[in-house]
């Protein structure tokens, strides 16, 4: 595995530089590419084909790229997988909206095509503006069961919210999921952690649906949520102020093994006094307001890396894919993400790593769910 990157604004030059750095062996089998939304997808694919003819490409647009040397904006980061120990297969499911589960199941179909090596993981990259991403992951799990770890993220578009893209099958796609099976002779391990703390007493979701929470404890969800966190006055009346306030304060949903973070900052309804983010929040669920800071988030970064590396069963890592949430940047700030990058670099101990800031993270570790918000997910390869 090799990683290369470039912040050249010229797509062709950036792609060529990144590929040249990433392809260390003679037999690249897959390029995993994360690129800023400022890079045109078609031009990027053309440049990648020119730089590494015939090598399959999966990838997506980002809200910042992660790799050795620290996070960037406007860059291209390329991971090249190859060598005799690996086999890959890729696929694309299009027109995902409205049939998320079926699309997830279809993408899982590519696992069978990657041969019979003992260790496999399915990398899934989704269009970040598709709703109900949990169902995509559930669809894949319904086909694969627990046999294959699921890992990946939702493409981002630099907070423009006008459209992210995914790359696969030699084309640029929207409303799609691309999948890549990584099959290996050696262990692959997936881990996930978030750095949020519960604040105050729990709240019951008394009305929810369609990715929105209408009431908490039988009162308008917007007001209950802001009251609980002692929000400033303008967060109650100004959507931008609400978003600024809520982005670093996810809603925590109780699970058996802990609390899951849900980002509800993106779809506030000031008239109906409800909050939403396109992720399912179950009616009757137990929830908490949550907050966190750079230290708690960086502690989660450490824990996720440790968990993933420990999952390799003592074998030395060849590299890592590390996907972090776009919303975390609001908490960490520019300085914080540099510190996050440094932590990743420390855990990598000289092996290559690459990732991006996402609109949602995929890692099925426990149970049957695997779609997360405001979380760091790590895939370690050995």
């Amino acid at each position, binding site marked *: 595995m090799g990683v290369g990157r470039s912040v050249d604004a010229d797509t062709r030059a950036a792609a060529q530089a990144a590929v040249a750095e990433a392809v260390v062996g003679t037999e690249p089998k897959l390029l995993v590419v994360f690129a800023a939304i400022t890079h045109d997808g078609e031009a990027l694919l053309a440049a990648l084909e020119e730089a590494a003819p015939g090598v399959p490409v999966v990838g997506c647009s980002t809200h910042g790229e992660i790799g050795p040397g620290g996070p960037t904006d406007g860059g291209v980061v390329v991971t090249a997988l190859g060598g005799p120990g690996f086999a890959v297969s890729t696929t694309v499911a299009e027109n995902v909206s409205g049939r998320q589960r079926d699309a997830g*199941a279809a993408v899982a179909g590519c696992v069978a095509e990657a041969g019979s090596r003992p260790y496999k993981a399915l990398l899934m990259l989704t269009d970040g503006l598709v709703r109900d991403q949990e169902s995509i992951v*559930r669809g894949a*799990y*319904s*086909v*694969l*069961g*627990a*046999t*294959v770890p699921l890992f990946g993220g939702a493409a981002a578009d630099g907070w423009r919210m006008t459209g992210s893209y995914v790359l696969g099958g030699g084309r640029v796609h929207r409303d799609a999921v691309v999948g890549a099976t990584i099959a290996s002779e050696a262990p692959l391990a997936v881990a996930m952690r978030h750095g949020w703390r519960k604040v105050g007493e*729990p709240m*019951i979701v008394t009305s929810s649906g369609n990715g929105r929470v209408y009431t908490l404890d039988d009162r308008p969800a917007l007001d209950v949520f802001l009251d609980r966190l002692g929000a400033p006055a303008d967060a109650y009346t100004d959507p931008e102020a609400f978003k600024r306030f809520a982005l670093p304060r996810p809603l925590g949903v*109780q*699970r*058996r*093994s802990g609390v899951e973070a849900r980002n509800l900052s993106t779809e506030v309804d000031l008239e109906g006094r409800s909050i939403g983010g396109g992720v399912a929040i*179950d*009616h*009757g*669920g*137990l929830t908490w307001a949550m907050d966190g800071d750079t230290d708690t988030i960086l502690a989660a970064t450490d824990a996720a890396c440790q968990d993933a590396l420990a999952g390799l069963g003592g074998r030395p890592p060849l590299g890592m894919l590390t996907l972090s949430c776009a919303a975390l940047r609001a908490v960490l700030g520019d300085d914080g993400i540099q510190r996050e990058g440094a932590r990743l670099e420390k855990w990598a101990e000289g092996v290559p790593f690459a990732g991006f800031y996402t609109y949602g993270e995929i890692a099925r570790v*426990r*149970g*049957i*769910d695997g779609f997360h918000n405001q979380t760091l997910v790590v895939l370690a390869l050995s």
Partner: protein
Amino acid sequence: MNDSASLQIQQLVELLAVVSSLTDEASALQGAAERAAQALEAEVAVVVLGGRVKASIGFPLGAVPDEEVLAVARHERDKLDVPGLGVCAATAAAWAGTHPGHLVLARWADERFSVEERNLVRGMARVLELTLTMQRTLRAEHEMRERLEERQRLLEHLFDIQRAISRRRPLQQILETVTHAAQDLFGDEVVGLWLRDPADPGRAKLKAFEGLRGELAKRLPALAMADAGEAGEAMRLDAVVSRDGGVSAVLARRAGRPLHASLAAPVHDSGAVTGSLLVASGQPNRTYSAADEQMLQAFAEHVSLALTDANTVDRMYQAFHDSLTGLAGRSLFLERMTQQFASAHTDGEQVALLFVDLDLFKAVNDTLGHAAGDQVLMIAAERIKSQLRVGDLAGRFGGDEFAVMLSQVRGVAEAEGVAERICAALRLPMAVAGQQVAVDASIGVAIGAPGQTDPAALMRAADIAMYHAKRAGRGRHEVYAEAMALAFGPTTAA
């Protein structure tokens, strides 16, 4: 309440919400399995119903180890080997009732299920049982309501058909009403009504249909019973024939699709089997119930009713009409005249009778033959009819004798006008047997006197007038006058 207890209640509520929001049982069971797995953060959940795995999550697609899962359900083992995880702790809870089942869960090796969790699984099984029972009850009620609605629609359709029969709508229209109604009620793609071919009663012909390609079906020739599939069989056996699979290819070809099931019921005319009504479906799992058989028989009996009625009408028509020209026969003509006299003559309107005798008809018969003679009579009948108004009546009394009743005339002149027009029409050449034939007519005209009630007297008067016309040189008309009767001797004419 501590978090753990409230979390458990929350999980039960969520399970209830998920299962009851899914209306079909397969989705509800799958939803229940996944919700249970989520609640216990288990990687595997399976719902067993009636000793069979009905829903699962966590095993690769199509690779559920049924026997091992059932062994956990029976509490014979508490571990499951899950691909990707290895040996996992497993737990199960059962429910009884009319549809007993089990909820089986398995979780990663070092995570044994606690007492509270096993209790939660039992609670979930109970919720599942209650919800499934409720859904089945609701479904049964729904089905019963649907059956009642179907019954109502059947009655409405049968009423429409009965009304069409009683109003003597054209037979073809009635038969098409039946096939249309049968398709609406059965929801099947194809309906066909076969009747014996009058020219060859050993064969059956498709008379009305739904769901077949129109032109192909219309061109379908009369088929031997053995070739008419289930329709022919129902006719041969005089019984309802139901078939799952292997529906005759004759219909499938015309339907443009494979047909998988059919139901045919015989139809009768005056008690004898004369055809059959068939419904056929392209749905692979279509079967027909006893209720379906009854429904088709109800439609078939209405076809029988329509056929019997139409034939009765036909026979009655034949009894009262001249078979060659279709004009009223003597008895019908007299009956109609009596009715006309009975209805009051108002405003000076009278009944007039015209006796029409073709001149030189015998010569046509003798020279060109009877067939040509018959043709002349048919042409003459048409020409006479063409001169009449609504309410007037033409009849043929035999040979070359025709009669015309003008129901409401204002005096002799009007009746003479009609007589002249008839003479003129009959005088025009007729193309018969490749020749132009000319005939003429002598017409006697008689006007009914006010208060007259006996049609025979008027007929006699017109008859006498006609003879006078013939004697006066043919091709003309004469109006009856008393003097004519005197010339004929004693008479009862008015």
